[in-house]
């Protein structure tokens, strides 16, 4: 562990834990979990295969924009599998952008343990956090994550959310505490639920479409019309670097001046969107060093951790169907996202199969979809007859094809058909 991180850890212990002596501390709940790591253990008498647990840390961290700018963020880290008493250590400065992707199946009971690990870079902040599962149908306020209407979790403690997962679809999640600030700072993630139709007995006849083992659908369509071979979550977002720098340097936050200059897909600008792996840990590098940003060349800003783990490199074999689970969680504008060369077929909207109440088909084909914050759409790209090669997913708001003022970047990804 490098010197910066070690020092930060000591500061954390002293500053943060000292503040709340009576805190109950980290406390995970997960039926069937024997050792508190939020992973159900089959040996447990309470083990239920439908129970899914996750442990997220909420705090701060760093990422790198595609032009090299290191950027301070708030977000969630995945500490599932980490022993309870190590969760805060692991979560500190461990925020990833986007937040860890949550994938569930219809019929799951989902226990989400949220531990507020505090803000390492801002020990003056005492922000609580929440998780808002955006679009969860028939939600109850206690688990809806809106701080004004329920409760949010303070530093060094855990709140466990419970979701009885009934409706498949493409959702999203984010923190709702001081929403404008926490969401601009990056507490945003992909979340989707796979339908029960995936688990039908092989050979089931869906109105003429024969289900086979391993077939996957976006929804319980009853006719195979949302069948796909490969699926990718694509979350639209954008950052205002002035806002993030102000947060990093303990300045008043410029809400009124907020204007995003780093458009991203799944937390990255092009060409990092098509890097198939995690981006390297954020490091302070010229020209983004003091005084442009408050760090020195060579600083490993979050202790050498991988904080951008979701790629938007979309790959398929010609003839396959690609499902894009597109959501938007930026806080300033609408974006239009287009695909060259392969039509998009919209089959789902806001986590609902796009049909009328008596089943009338509302599916439509298009070259682009336009989403504001809090909207999601499921589109299927049918690559039958498509010549192998590279196609592009990009914003037609073409001035956002840049990373701040760096050209040939921004909100673009690639679809590689072989």
């Amino acid at each position, binding site marked *: 562990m490098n010197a910066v991180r070690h020092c930060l850890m000591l500061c954390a212990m002293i500053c943060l834990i000292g503040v709340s002596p009576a805190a109950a501390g980290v406390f995970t709940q997960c039926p069937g979990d024997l050792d508190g790591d939020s992973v159900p253990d089959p040996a447990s008498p309470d083990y239920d295969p439908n129970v899914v647990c996750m442990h997220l840390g909420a705090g701060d961290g760093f990422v790198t924009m595609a032009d090299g700018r290191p950027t301070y963020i708030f977000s969630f880290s995945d500490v599932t599998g980490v022993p309870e008493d190590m969760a805060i250590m692991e979560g500190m400065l461990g925020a990833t952008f986007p937040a860890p992707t949550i994938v569930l199946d219809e019929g799951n009971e989902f226990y989400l343990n949220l531990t507020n690990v505090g803000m390492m870079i801002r020990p003056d902040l005492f922000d609580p956090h929440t998780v808002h599962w955006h679009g969860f149908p028939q939600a109850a306020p206690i688990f809806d994550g809106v701080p*004004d209407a329920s409760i949010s979790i303070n530093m060094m403690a855990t709140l466990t959310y419970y979701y009885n997962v009934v409706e498949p679809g493409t959702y999203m999640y984010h923190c709702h505490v001081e929403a404008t600030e926490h969401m601009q700072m990056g507490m945003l993630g992909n979340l989707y639920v796979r339908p029960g139709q995936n688990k039908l007995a092989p050979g089931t006849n869906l109105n003429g479409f024969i289900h086979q083992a391993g077939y996957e659908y976006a929804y319980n369509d009853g006719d195979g019309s949302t069948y796909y071979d490969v699926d990718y979550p694509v979350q639209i977002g954008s950052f205002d670097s002035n806002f993030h720098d102000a947060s990093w340097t303990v300045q008043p936050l410029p809400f009124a001046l907020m204007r995003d200059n780093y458009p991203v897909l799944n937390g990255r600008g092009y060409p990092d969107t098509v890097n198939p792996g995690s981006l390297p840990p954020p490091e302070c590098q010229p020209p983004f060093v003091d005084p442009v940003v408050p760090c020195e060349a060579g600083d490993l800003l979050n202790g050498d951790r991988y904080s951008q783990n979701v790629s938007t490199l979309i790959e398929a074999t010609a003839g396959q169907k690609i499902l894009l689970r597109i959501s938007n969680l930026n806080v300033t504008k609408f974006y239009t996202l287009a695909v060259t060369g392969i039509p998009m077929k919209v089959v789902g909207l806001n986590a609902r199969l796009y049909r009328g109440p008596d089943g009338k088909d509302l599916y439509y084909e298009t070259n682009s979809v336009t989403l*504001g914050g809090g909207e999601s759409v499921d589109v299927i790209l049918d690559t039958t007859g498509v010549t192998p090669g590279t196609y592009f997913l990009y914003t037609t708001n073409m001035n956002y094809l840049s990373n701040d003022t760096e050209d040939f970047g921004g909100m673009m990804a690639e679809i590689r058909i072989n």
Partner: protein
Amino acid sequence: MSMIRNYSMKIPLGFAVLVFLLLATDSYAMINGVHVVSGVPVTLTAKADHISTGDGNSVYFWGYGLNGNRAQYPGPTFIMNEGDTLIINLTNNLPPGSGNVSIIFPGNKVATAGGVPGLLTQEAGPAGSVTYTVTAYNPGTYLYHSGTNPELQVEMGLIGAIIVRPDMGVNYAYNDQDSAFDHEYLFLLSEMDPRIHELIKFYGVAALETTDYLSDYFPNYWFINGRNAPDTMAMAGVPWFPTQPYNCMPRMHPGEKLLMRVIDAGRDMHPFHHHGNHARIIAKDGRLLESMPGVGPDLSYEVFTIQAVPGETVDALFEWTGKGLGWDIYGDPTDPDYAHTCVDGNGDDFDDTTWEYCPDHGKPFPVVLPETLDITFGGFYSGSPFLGVLSSLPPGEGGLNPNAGFVYMWHSHTEKEMTNFDIFPGGMMTMLIIEPPGVPIP
């Protein structure tokens, strides 16, 4: 029945008094507006005044004033019946040098009399007037706004709503059974850039041509029905908002249908996110989403965020029961403090009176909540996760939810729009309160 008795035992007397006070003034009722008498002219005067914003600011605006009253933001909501005629005599009292003013009625047929020709319609010249006759051939939700320099005058506040009720009755949005509702609320969305208003106030309209405020539009106030949060949740018609008579405080009971009449009267799109459940969009621009005229909204679809487009209107039905949550939302029925029954006489899985989802009846609350010192409480939190239950809160916490309803934030999901000129929270936001069964909602 037993549930209501339980609630009154649970609610301390002080809270009951508070509830009574809040409900006595009819201020949360249906849609506040002007009931149109067909064929009887109303006078609207376009004039300048000020509004109060959620950050304590006072912003100069232009609005339509009704029958000699002060200008209001938004203009009066006209409520009329299908087939009625709305006659508006518009008089121009805008400050000298401001030019003409007018009204256009997207989606509606209008005849004009008098006035001077403008680019979009007949206009009232300086100190002049013009008459518009609008015949409401179709029920639905509509808007009106200035057709003169609309990029300036809509920004300045010359906007309003028109509700046309169908022949089928006041509890229907259209002449179709599937448009029935129990409560209806208007969500007229708009925004302002205070720099434009200051410039107009002190220097007049010509000064705008030396800035890029209109081509590079950058608002900093966002409104529902003319107010920023938290003022959206204050009562309608209160004297400290003399030019902002309308509020936005939606309330319902489980199992009921709430009609959202969403109008985007500004020039920016807004993603209106209603926490709690999906809503079903049944009509747009005053037309049912139907595959053929008369079949009913067979093309309706559900969303969790309504994509509001400038100039467009959306009618959506919102329902909530808590179905499928997997735990009893009223608490443990075997505990005397939470005793309640779930009686499903008609076999639809819901209690016949309270709409409790009976398959979840008696299921225990699934987690242990953190200790008090580890939690930050929201002002609308009742102290308990259960519907209708007030529980202990630290001193000074809670208090905004005297009936212990379930509260959900309804807001623009462009979160920058939840601020009042650099101050969070605010802007285009309100709360839906799902009150326990038996709580009166006007």
